[in-house]
């Protein structure tokens, strides 16, 4: 006899914020059409004016905050080991720092790992729809991280143009080209903005791979779990006559080699790269549970064996937009 079982909604489906978002307009706000001049008033999203956060007073207080509170938090939670900063020895002037993205801690960790002078002369591209949706949140992000809004949900050149202007003024840019935190621990496809900006401004890209922040505070978890994190700097990359799309693909491939280097060693990673066997950061295109299983197994050093570092509840919560 066949037994029919009712399928239960997952905890993810029951999240009220997710449900409201899925209802769309008018339960959520509608985006301003690109062809329309916005209303004057408190400009948010990619229209937020973050100039004030680069004033001398804001910069000075930011340095103090980052070097005290920011560093204390990062050190306590991540105990970071930073490798290969010497690859930046020949770097001069502004650059675009490109990193993988798993956690809210990534921004502080990346900034804190940068050598001077870039550490305090960098702006961070942050999601316009998430960090710049309210005046308070926008002000906090702009001040503490030096964040500038970047649109990721729709086509808008406003954020990119503003970032390009800042690079041309001498600011470096930190950007996470995946466009958001990893929902499952694996990497995501890169968007082309970082490569476009570097190509447009004629500045090098410095790839940075951070390993382990998803174990400290992954997407969906509220309480951090301290864990050692490794930050690995790659050599500055210049566009080699290729278009921005191919440059972006090369940056992504370089990050994969850096990840492999972090988990093995420099020479093994080089050999794997030469053989075209560098493991992909995006993971295999399996069903969800198999991707999870493989990821957990690879971290435990025993492929196929789950170490269950995150609870089911943690995963169910993994639906924040960023």
């Amino acid at each position: 006899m066949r037994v029919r079982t009712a399928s239960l909604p997952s905890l993810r489906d029951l999240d009220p914020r997710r449900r409201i978002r899925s209802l769309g307009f008018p339960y959520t706000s509608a985006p301003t059409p690109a062809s329309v001049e916005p209303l004057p008033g408190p400009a948010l999203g990619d229209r937020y004016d973050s100039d004030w956060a680069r004033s001398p007073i804001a910069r000075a207080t930011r340095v103090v905050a980052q070097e005290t509170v920011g560093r204390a938090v990062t050190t306590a939670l991540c105990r970071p080991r930073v490798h290969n900063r010497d690859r930046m020895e020949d770097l001069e002037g502004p650059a675009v720092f490109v990193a993988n993205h798993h956690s809210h801690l990534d921004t502080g960790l990346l900034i804190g790992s940068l050598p001077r002078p870039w550490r305090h002369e960098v702006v961070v591209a942050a999601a316009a729809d998430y960090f710049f949706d309210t005046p308070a949140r926008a002000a906090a992000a702009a001040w503490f991280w030096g964040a500038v809004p970047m649109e990721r949900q729709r086509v808008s050149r406003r954020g990119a143009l503003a970032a390009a202007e800042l690079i041309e003024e001498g600011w470096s840019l930190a950007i996470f080209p995946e466009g958001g935190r990893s929902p499952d621990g694996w990497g995501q496809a890169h968007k082309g903005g970082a490569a476009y900006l570097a190509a447009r401004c004629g500045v090098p890209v410095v790839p940075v791979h951070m390993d382990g922040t998803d174990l400290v505070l992954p997407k969906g978890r509220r309480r951090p779990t301290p864990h050692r994190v490794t930050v690995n700097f790659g050599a500055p990359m210049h566009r080699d006559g290729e278009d921005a799309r191919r440059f972006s693909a090369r940056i992504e491939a370089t990050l994969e080699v850096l990840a492999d280097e972090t988990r093995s060693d420099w020479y093994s990673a080089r050999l794997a790269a030469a053989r075209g066997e560098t493991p992909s950061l995006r993971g295999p295109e399996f069903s969800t549970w198999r991707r999870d299983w493989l990821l957990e197994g690879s971290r435990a050093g025993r492929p196929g064996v789950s170490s269950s570092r995150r609870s089911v509840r943690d995963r169910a919560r993994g639906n924040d937009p960023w």
Partner: protein
Amino acid sequence: MSRQHEHRPRPGLVMPVDRSTPPVLMHHGEQLRLQRLPADRSRVIYPPEPLEPIEDEGAAIREALDNPIDSDPLDQRLFAGMRLTIAFDDVSLPLPPMRAPDIRQRIIEAVLDRAAAAGVDDVHLIAALALHRRMTEAELRHAVGDRVYDALAPRGQLYNHDAEDPDGMVLLGTTDHGEEVEISRRAAESDLIVYVNVNLVAMDGGWKSTATGLSGYRALRHHHNPATMTHSRSFMDRHNSELHHSNWRQGEVLRSAGVEVFQIETTLNNDLYGNGPMSVLAKREWEWTARDRAGFVATRAALDRMRPGTRRKVMHRWRAPYGLTSVQAGEVEAVHEVTTRNVYRQQLVEVEGQTDVLLFGLPYISPYNVDSILNPILVHCLGLGYFFNLYRGRPLVREGGVVIMSHPTTPEFNPVHHPSYIDFFEEVLPETTDPVEMAERFEKDYANDEWYRHLYRTGHAYHGVHPFYMWYWGAHALDHLGGVVVLGGDPATVRRLGYRPASTLDDALEIASDLVGPTPTITYFKNPPLMMADVK
């Protein structure tokens, strides 16, 4: 809204629809809908924001009366012993009704102040309603104010125009086109008519005020007929409107007969909702705040759950906080030119090119159902007569195109206000929807029906011929269009009107594609608030 955001009023907007465009607000009778439009071939026309109103209305009125256009100041035209008639627009203007004090009250009080100072005893006030229903006491009080009403109505000096009073109308002559000119005897025999007008749309005012508002069937039939209506392109563009040409000819006859008119015309901004709970209806969707969205969701849900009668009462209770944008007085035609410019200043939106499919969301109110039901014939009139004609230059929709109107279109009628409409719906429409044919076969019987005449004169009924006129309003559109689809309408009623019903916009577009091709261009004319397309 200018008041809310502290910025200059923005002009209208023609916005192309792409995939990121949110669903747009659409009126559906007394209900509200959000409708997603097909991307990359649709556009939405948003009305301009309300112009800043005149701050000191009293001073503006005084200025208009003291410095009229092509006329002596009002004070110089008033004298003791004269017969003065003040005529004013009826309940059909403005829409929705204006919050008290109505602008008519302010102007009439200013005129009466001067008349009193000049020693004028013989003053009559007439609601110039032509063949519309008589205004109730409450409506008259709202229009002219309690002070005026209590001073004049008890003495029989404030009343509704009666176009069927055999002793109350006078024939003044005939135009060179053979059009008879007949108006109220009291007005015609006055030393001066002061006409107080509310120009909500460009169609109102000018000679149409006196030649139509104070006239009757004998004169109206010369321009309220299918031929004239078909050649009025549009009603909102006087110089291209046969309806207005006819009225202007009748005005010439009035002038030749010695009828003195001091015309006072006013224009209002399109602030229908103010900053209150209804303000969301005038905002562009991407500018809705969290409060707007919450208010809209709650309002829509509440309206959807109300009984139709309750819903109607709630909606008709709304009074709009219009602001006065201009007031001018003097010679009829010169005044009207200035007035029209001021209406256009508020309402015109430049639109590039015509469309295959024109989409309307019809609201709950038209000029002929204040505190009443927008019955199926008025749906036709509002959609094809008014909304279709809100253009200058060319119609928004191309010849052979399709109009899609969103409205429930139920076979409901107010038997007090619209008795002849019921018979029109049951007797005439099943026979024909062709304006010319119905005019020939049925119009005279309805116009001369004694029962309808009795109800018009003693009750609050529209004249027997009125449903015909409502149908003729759509004659130009019927002549121009390839088809009409009613979205969300009662199928049997919609078919009775000669239209095609559709339950969803996709279905409506599917029906339209038979006439205009598989991927038509679509224009959604997001009205109200009122606007007018200047089609290039």
